[in-house]
């Protein structure tokens, strides 16, 4: 009786695995397959699974188009700056939260947690006039500064948590030896928290790389567009060159996929920190 029940559970588990793999994996496989097809075969009926004339043509076209290469450069530069600034500013704030008691601490902390609930679209309209007033419309800074508002809170909460696990005795020892607080933070606390900071950095990179709404509205010219906006621009411009759009999608997803596959543990730590205590 028990053996039979176990068998049924096993069959159910395997069935769910197969359905799950198809549900999660098939669309991604389909994206890759289509990026190698000639455009004429995209909507062939019955579908062409692996094209006889499969080629890297779509990828080559993207790499030969300076406008599209520019989308990638913009995305890398912006995400890179956002990660660096978020970490520097966030580490400093986390140090204050972790090592000091001061007036307003509780209040500032509450604001930082609550910012995660503020919808970007609510800030969009004031940002538009603010960014124009600051004369940074259609520049990297328009995106870098606005992204920081949404990347910093998460960074501060995570990093404060990591710093709290490190004994105060460690940085006090540095200060007794004549080192400054600043030195203790960057030479002792930060190196000890590298694994946590890697998680934070990756999550921040993902947030910046994937952002769409601000990238769409706070930049105007094609040479300032990022990958998420750029992919969508291909739709209008090239009269539905589906193979190129799929190739661009694959290329645009690669940085995050590589981070995920190679640093799974850190990536998952970053993902779960919002809900799992």
């Amino acid at each position, binding site marked *: 009786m028990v053996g039979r029940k176990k068998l049924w*559970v096993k069959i159910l*588990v395997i069935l*769910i695995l197969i359905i*799950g*793999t198809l549900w*999660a*994996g098939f*669309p*991604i496989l389909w994206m890759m397959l*289509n990026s190698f097809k000639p455009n004429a075969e995209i*909507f062939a*009926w*019955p*579908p062409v699974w692996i094209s006889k004339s499969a080629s890297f043509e779509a990828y080559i076209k993207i790499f030969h188009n300076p406008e599209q290469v520019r989308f990638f450069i913009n995305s890398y530069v912006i995400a890179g700056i956002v990660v660096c600034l978020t970490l520097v*500013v966030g580490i*400093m*704030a986390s*140090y*204050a939260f972790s090592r*000091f008691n001061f007036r307003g*601490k509780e209040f*500032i902390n509450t*604001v*930082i*947690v*609550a*910012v*995660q*609930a*503020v*919808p970007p*679209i*609510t*800030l969009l*309209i*004031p*940002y538009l*006039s*603010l960014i124009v007033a600051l004369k940074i419309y259609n520049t990297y800074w328009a995106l870098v500064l606005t992204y*920081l508002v949404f990347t910093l809170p998460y960074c501060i909460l995570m990093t404060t948590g990591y710093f709290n696990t490190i004994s105060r005795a460690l940085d006090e020892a540095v200060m007794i030896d004549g080192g400054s607080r600043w030195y203790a933070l960057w030479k002792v606390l930060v190196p000890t928290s590298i694994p946590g900071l890697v998680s934070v950095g990756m999550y921040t990179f993902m947030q910046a*790389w994937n952002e*769409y*709404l601000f990238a769409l509205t706070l930049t105007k010219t094609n040479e300032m567009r990022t*990958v*998420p*906006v750029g*992919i*969508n621009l291909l739709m209008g411009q090239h009269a539905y060159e*589906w193979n190129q*759009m799929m190739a661009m*999608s694959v290329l*645009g997803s690669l940085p995050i*996929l590589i981070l*995920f596959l190679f640093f*799974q543990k850190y990536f998952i730590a970053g*993902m*779960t920190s*919002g*809900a799992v*205590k």
Partner: protein
Amino acid sequence: MNTANQTAKIRKKITPYMYLMPTIVLMVILLVVPICMVIKFSMLDEAITSKAPSFVGIKNYVKVLTDKNFWNAAKNTMFFVLVSIVAHMVIGMVFAMVLNTRYLSSTTKGLCRVIFALPWMFTASVIAILWRLMMNPSGIINYLIVTLHLSPEGVDWLASRSVALIAVTIINIWSGYPFYMISMLAGLQGISTDMYEASALDGANGIRTFIHITLPSLKPILISLIMLDFVWTLQQFALIWMTTGGGPVGSTETIATYIYKQAFSKYKYSIASTAAVLLLIICIIIGIFYVRHQRSEE
């Protein structure tokens, strides 16, 4: 001697603020000021477009709250959010539990965990374009439907008024469940095996163990997940904008696309600001509950 001591004391007092300075400056300029601005815009008659807009009080709020299109958007948003959350939760839970069983080798588990988590790694525009390709009238999904004889002819997923909202909800379900799955998996792995063994000794079956041990242990995580997901899905813009643009005929219009259209295609910034403030209020209320919940867990 005394003055040196005092300066040291003052220095110690202001040190934390020095470390916080960049964060505070940034949050004031790019968060506090914009929120005040959007509230102000919502009370002007022609914000941004007019050089000298006049104060109209709550007139815009009355206008938005009596706008048929706004309520249509609110209704669609509610459907989109509720169905997404329930589906995310169910799919996430099932996958997490399967990945946590002892029937599978750790290699299979590792591989499946990666595959199941994949949709989370893609940006909204990639997801939108990919599903537009698959949901095209002559796309792969319709091919499967016709070949498997589920329906004599294909469905025009994103262009038909009756199914477009369901279609964008499915896309959102696909892109969001891994967040639940990964978090719940971490939660499941935190439940001690002793509890399961004790429950098995008591003769409890799978379903009873699930209700009395698994669910209560996951409850705090689930509450956090639902609140985060609620806020995120409520303001989902990119996915809908790039698949249907709110159409056809407003059938997938959500609060976010409503705000965007009022601002950027109709240039009614005051109306857009008003709807944006209403959205903010809902999100902040949930945010407060989230903060309280997180605090009580600590």
